[in-house]
């Protein structure tokens, strides 16, 4: 928590590390850094870049039921874009992300502020809060399958039925509420992480501006909006973006909880890509979907990288 680069800390005085720019390559020959990363780069080319290029290749060909057909130009993409399920999946994803991420964000920030009050046994409590986040998504799905099982599930019987939300069937089978149930599960899994990440950010803030503010008689709300929030912004953006990327590709918990159903109510793009491939065997269109999603992700990634690098000085 103390090892924030000095450049990040305003009003600290002290020597600036940025001035002592190091010699390129530390006097090592030019090839040395490349040699060190060669094995990793070759591996990543084989395991990530080549499969991606292969997916691009397939997406331009007729391919159904595992047989390669003719060159299809943009045929698969046209098919994808005119497929109602594709737009449905995008809509579901946008809804999912637009509800889940801001809620996790706000709950996380609130939690982080509470956690940074003086409390007993904080270091004992923190590991427990990591448990939902570190858990396998499939186990998360399993937990909530048990809690929200139709008719006898603890929450189904004691909370959902009295509220009249979903009768005796599981809420995951309800066309109206299944997506919200999945959003709830996502919030359960990721809010503690947001909380702890923001907490770490709060701990790393420099103390001097806060002292100055206290001297000037700023109240806690002023301090939060004029000091904490501006100084935390890059961090909030980076963590928000990361969460956005991850929320968009959630698959495992949906797979075990609803399988995209009922109907296509909870069919996120990843679930649709899975079904297109392994249920409909329409591999050409599925690859087109994969490529579209991939490009979308790359844009997000780039933004994440630029913000994290420039504003947060993180990398």
């Amino acid at each position, binding site marked *: *928590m103390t090892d924030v680069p000095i450049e990040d800390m305003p009003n600290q005085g002290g020597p600036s590390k940025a001035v002592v720019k*190091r010699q*390129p*390559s*530390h*006097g090592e020959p030019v090839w*040395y*850094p*490349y040699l*060190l*990363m060669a*094995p*990793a*780069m070759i591996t*990543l080319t084989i*395991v*990530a870049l080549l499969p*991606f290029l292969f997916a691009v290749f*397939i997406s331009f060909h007729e391919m159904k039921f*595992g047989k390669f057909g003719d060159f299809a130009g943009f045929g698969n993409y046209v098919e994808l874009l005119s497929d109602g399920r594709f737009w449905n999946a995008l809509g579901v994803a946008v809804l999912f992300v637009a509800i889940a991420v801001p809620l996790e964000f706000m709950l996380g920030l609130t939690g982080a502020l509470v*956690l940074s009050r*003086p*409390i*007993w*046994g904080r270091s004992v*409590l923190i*590991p427990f809060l*990591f*448990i939902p*986040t570190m858990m*396998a998504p*499939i*186990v998360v799905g*399993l*937990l*909530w399958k*048990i809690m929200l099982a139709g*008719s*006898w599930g603890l929450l189904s*019987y004691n909370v959902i039925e009295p509220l009249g939300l979903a009768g005796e069937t599981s809420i995951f089978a309800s066309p109206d509420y299944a997506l919200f149930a999945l959003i709830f599960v996502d919030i*359960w899994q990721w*809010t*503690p992480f947001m909380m702890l*990440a923001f907490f770490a950010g709060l701990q*790393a803030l420099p103390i001097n501006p806060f002292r100055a503010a206290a001297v000037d008689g700023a109240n806690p709300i002023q301090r939060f909006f004029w000091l904490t929030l501006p100084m935390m912004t890059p*961090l909030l953006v980076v*963590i928000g973006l990361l969460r956005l990327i991850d929320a968009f*590709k959630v*698959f495992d918990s949906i797979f075990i909880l609803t399988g995209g159903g009922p109907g296509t109510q909870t069919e996120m793009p990843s679930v649709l*890509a*899975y079904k297109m491939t392994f249920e409909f065997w329409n*591999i050409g269109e599925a690859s087109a979907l*994969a*490529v579209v999603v*991939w490009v979308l*992700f*790359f844009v997000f*990634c780039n933004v994440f990288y630029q913000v994290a690098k420039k504003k*947060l000085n993180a*990398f």
Partner: protein
Amino acid sequence: MQRTLTARDAFRRKTLWTALVVAAAAFILFPVIWMIGMMVKPTDIMFARPTEWLFVPTLEHFNYVFEQKFHHYLLTSVLLGLISTLLVVIIGTPAAYSFARFEMRGKDDLFLFVLASRMAPPVCLVIPYYLIFARIDLLDTFIGLTLAYMTFNLSFYIWVLRSFCRDLPAELEDAARLEGWSRVQIFRRIVLPLLRNGIVATSVLCFIFAWNEFLFAFMLGGKAVKTLPVAIPTLITTQGVRWGEMAVVGMVALAPVLIAVFFLQRHIVRGLTMGAVKG
């Protein structure tokens, strides 16, 4: 005007906030506690309405889990996690060091390439993987899954370990260089020992990710190489869901995570934010 706080006020407030956080944590963890109960809950009262809270614990679910050879899947999970993590550490450590320490042409692009392979949705990768593996007979093999796990774990490892490398002072290495140490000596005798904590923390995270992974294991493995997460949905049988058994297997799948969270603590934040937040 700010009210002056007496010691007693401070004590009260601290107690209040602590109680709030403990209550929130208990609320968050309740499903896990409930699942532990399910492990030993007799089947005949499991579906009771209203919910039965008190019961005599039973081991029937454990028996079934052993009969169904779930310990094989456990072994597969452990082996696959260890092999893929070990490989990632061997390949990734020099790369992370290189990214952290040296300036070079094209570094930004290479780095973004690493990030992109981490961020890519696995479901997009699984399609080409499936087709390629089907052709070269790597479906349902350790090698195939290890390769697939590299996509997210190798890139993750490089990114996070790089942030640990950046915390090392370069002066030691410079001094050793002046003393005439070779590059290999510097790496082995200075960099590696100083990086030990970072390597351990990051590789434990890698192991957990491999351990938790579902989609690749499900699509590219499944018979000979079947991991625990893949075995869990098989308990949803045509005769109904084996809830108690699911709880048992789920808890086993959770066990390494429970150990890791206490062991890793603040490194988790650094890991899950790709090194952006130092935890």
